């Protein structure tokens, strides 16, 4: 990947599209859980409909991300923004595949569902923000 000046920005663009797909669809479910949008179907239905695309986005992210990491692994490893991003990413993925899946089920307390949505939005935002900071710190 280091051999061509075109490859890195192309992989990076795919990374952007991957996170738009994954984080974008997760945010839609979060907004539904918060009761501020997507109200024409239940959170469970919305989450079930969007989940394949969320996962495709996650797969794209987790493919293009390590590719970019591999171009300068040592520098990334010691970059504080990168470490912060990876911590938030691990927590966000863990939340998504555990708490978040339960939060969309019918019968869950609205307060718990909203709490899960807020934590999800904050964690994913920190992943993006941490990613942006890598080039600066």
């Amino acid at each position: 990947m280091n051999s061509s000046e075109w490859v890195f920005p192309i992989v990076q663009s795919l990374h952007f599209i991957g996170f738009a797909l994954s984080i974008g669809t997760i945010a839609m479910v979060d907004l539904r859980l918060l009761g501020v949008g997507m109200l024409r179907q239940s959170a469970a239905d919305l989450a079930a409909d969007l989940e394949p695309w969320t996962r495709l986005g996650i797969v794209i992210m987790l493919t293009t991300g390590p590719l970019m990491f591999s171009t300068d692994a040592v520098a990334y490893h010691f970059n504080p923004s990168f470490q912060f991003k990876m911590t938030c990413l691990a927590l966000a993925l863990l939340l998504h595949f555990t708490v978040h899946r339960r939060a969309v089920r019918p019968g869950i307390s609205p307060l718990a569902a909203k709490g899960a949505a807020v934590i999800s939005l904050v964690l994913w935002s920190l992943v993006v923000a941490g990613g942006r900071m890598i080039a600066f710190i």
Partner: protein
Amino acid sequence: MTNPSVLEWIESTRLSIAIREGGLPYPIIGGIHLLSIALFGGALLITDLRLLGLVMAQRRFSDLWYQFRPWKRLGFVTITATGLLLAWAEPVRLYGSPSFWVKMSLFALVGVHARVFRAGVYGHPEKQDAGISSQAKLAAVLSLVLWAGMVLAGRLIAYDASFEPTGN
């Protein structure tokens, strides 16, 4: 290429200097730009994929359209606002960046796209509820191509030879 004096004036404004040389403001505005891409892009992808019958096919298109549109609009406004601030910080460099002009040309085409398909697709989403027209499918494909192109061109700005960003 000579720089129009208006660009040099923009760079001399306090706002421009504050974003460009202030340290944190540039990546923070860039971060909000990216988060807006996630919000807008997510809503756009789902809307376009629905037109192609690939997501939520059992739900009416108009149902989806009216639910996602406010978030698409919010994302569009914040992308544009943060984009303007980022451009305000470095207008001379962007003026000399071919990728920036590709990105802006694609942005103009997005406007053309919206206008061309308003009558047949976006202005009357209920028309697609009985079955997605081939015009609507074409609109979806073109929309995906245009926005993917904007992401790529935007990313390439940082790699243009004339551009020396503080970060990538």
